[in-house]
């Protein structure tokens, strides 16, 4: 009722913290102390004090909303114990299979070990860029250094997720291709030979 009374009752930093809460829940990018100070028309020092309060309130284990300091400033994120629920919220429908190009590329990397894109392209007879990119996005292959050190082409290897999806204990449990070659090197040579013959 009495405005002077209310001013005393509400801790001013707490009030500032509430406004910052509101700004953070609307923002689609992290907000810096400067941006928050501009929006609230308040001192950066007081904004920092309010953020300290919020960091405490929105802490892991204490709240589902967690205040995080990242490169660009401050932003809310989901707490770690909600990560499974978040994954279900954002999940996409399960893909039933891979494209022929992805399957061939994956087979080459799985059987021959780390391979570069030019090498895969030579074996398949077509560019491998988009197939490799889709396998990286799916997490089935990952970068594994470069050919002949720095400057060479990036090489790719299969990931533990690949083994899980294909129900393999390790790469050693891939179906054997003894009828094609005795070992990995022989297999590589044979694939390159066939590719060269196919072109001619």
């Amino acid at each position, binding site marked *: 009722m009495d405005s002077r009374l209310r001013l005393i009752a509400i801790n001013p930093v707490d009030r500032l913290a509430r406004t910052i809460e509101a700004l953070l829940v609307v923002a689609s990018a992290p907000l810096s102390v400067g941006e928050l100070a501009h929006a609230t028309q308040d001192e950066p020092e007081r904004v920092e004090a309010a953020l300290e309060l919020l960091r405490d309130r929105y802490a892991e284990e204490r709240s589902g909303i967690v205040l995080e300091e990242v490169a660009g400033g401050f932003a809310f994120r989901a707490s770690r114990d909600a990560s499974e629920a978040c994954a279900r919220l*954002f999940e996409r429908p399960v893909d039933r299979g891979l494209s022929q190009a992805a399957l061939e590329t994956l087979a080459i990397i799985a059987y021959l070990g780390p391979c570069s894109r030019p090498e895969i392209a030579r074996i398949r007879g077509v560019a491998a860029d988009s197939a490799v990119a889709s396998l990286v996005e799916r997490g089935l292959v990952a970068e594994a250094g470069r050919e002949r050190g720095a400057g060479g082409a990036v090489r790719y290897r299969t990931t533990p997720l690949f083994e899980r999806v294909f129900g393999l204990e390790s790469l050693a449990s891939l179906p054997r291709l003894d009828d094609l070659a005795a070992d990995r090197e022989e297999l590589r040579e044979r694939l390159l030979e*066939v590719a060269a013959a196919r072109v001619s």
Partner: protein
Amino acid sequence: MRELELDLDAFEGPFDLLLALLLREELEPREVDVASIVVAFAEQLAQRDEIDLEACGEFLVLVAALLELKARFLLPDEAAELDALEPEEAAEELARRLTEYRRLKAAAAWLAERLSAERDRWFRLGPAPLQPRAERRLAPQSPAALADALRALASLPPSVSLGHLALRFPPVSRFLERFRALLARRRVFDFDQEVGALSRVEQAVAFLALLELRRAGEVTLSQGAPFAPIRVSRAADERIRQWTAGSA
């Protein structure tokens, strides 16, 4: 004759004008200066960049209804034999349309009020700054598929005479059907990826089918550079934009 005060700033269409006129209590049909309504409408049209035939048609119907009412009022006796159309019918139709429009005008006013009342409600447009990444998941796969793929890469196709191959062109229709089915499920596909596993002859026929679809306007094709993968997309893409962060 009464002078008509036409407020051109508030004029949004023929209905607004008629409503304003008819709801003015003291106004009688014989006092309605139809000519000034036509002039007002023509001026309004002149301010627009293009002529809207639909609006002109609507306007003609309304002015005709008004003229008929006025003519019958001015010439009560002859009017009965002039036309088969009952004036009550014309009035009824006019009333129905004006009522419909009036209700929607009230709804528009409600929306405007609501919009200004909700101006202090702020919410986020678009994704959260630290939104978890959507993962693409894959159903369990069989390792035998990998072995098969590699075995296919490691063996040369049986050599057959080219003359024989030439006789075995697959029909173009097969690829037409296949691409149409594919586009029913997916908006865009990669041509090279789709035909990568096929023989050269099949690839050539598939390409003919692709050109056929493009000629019919069913697909659009794009290619980043010569020999780059060809992307095929549905011509009439009707994706619905749901959440847009578009600002005013």
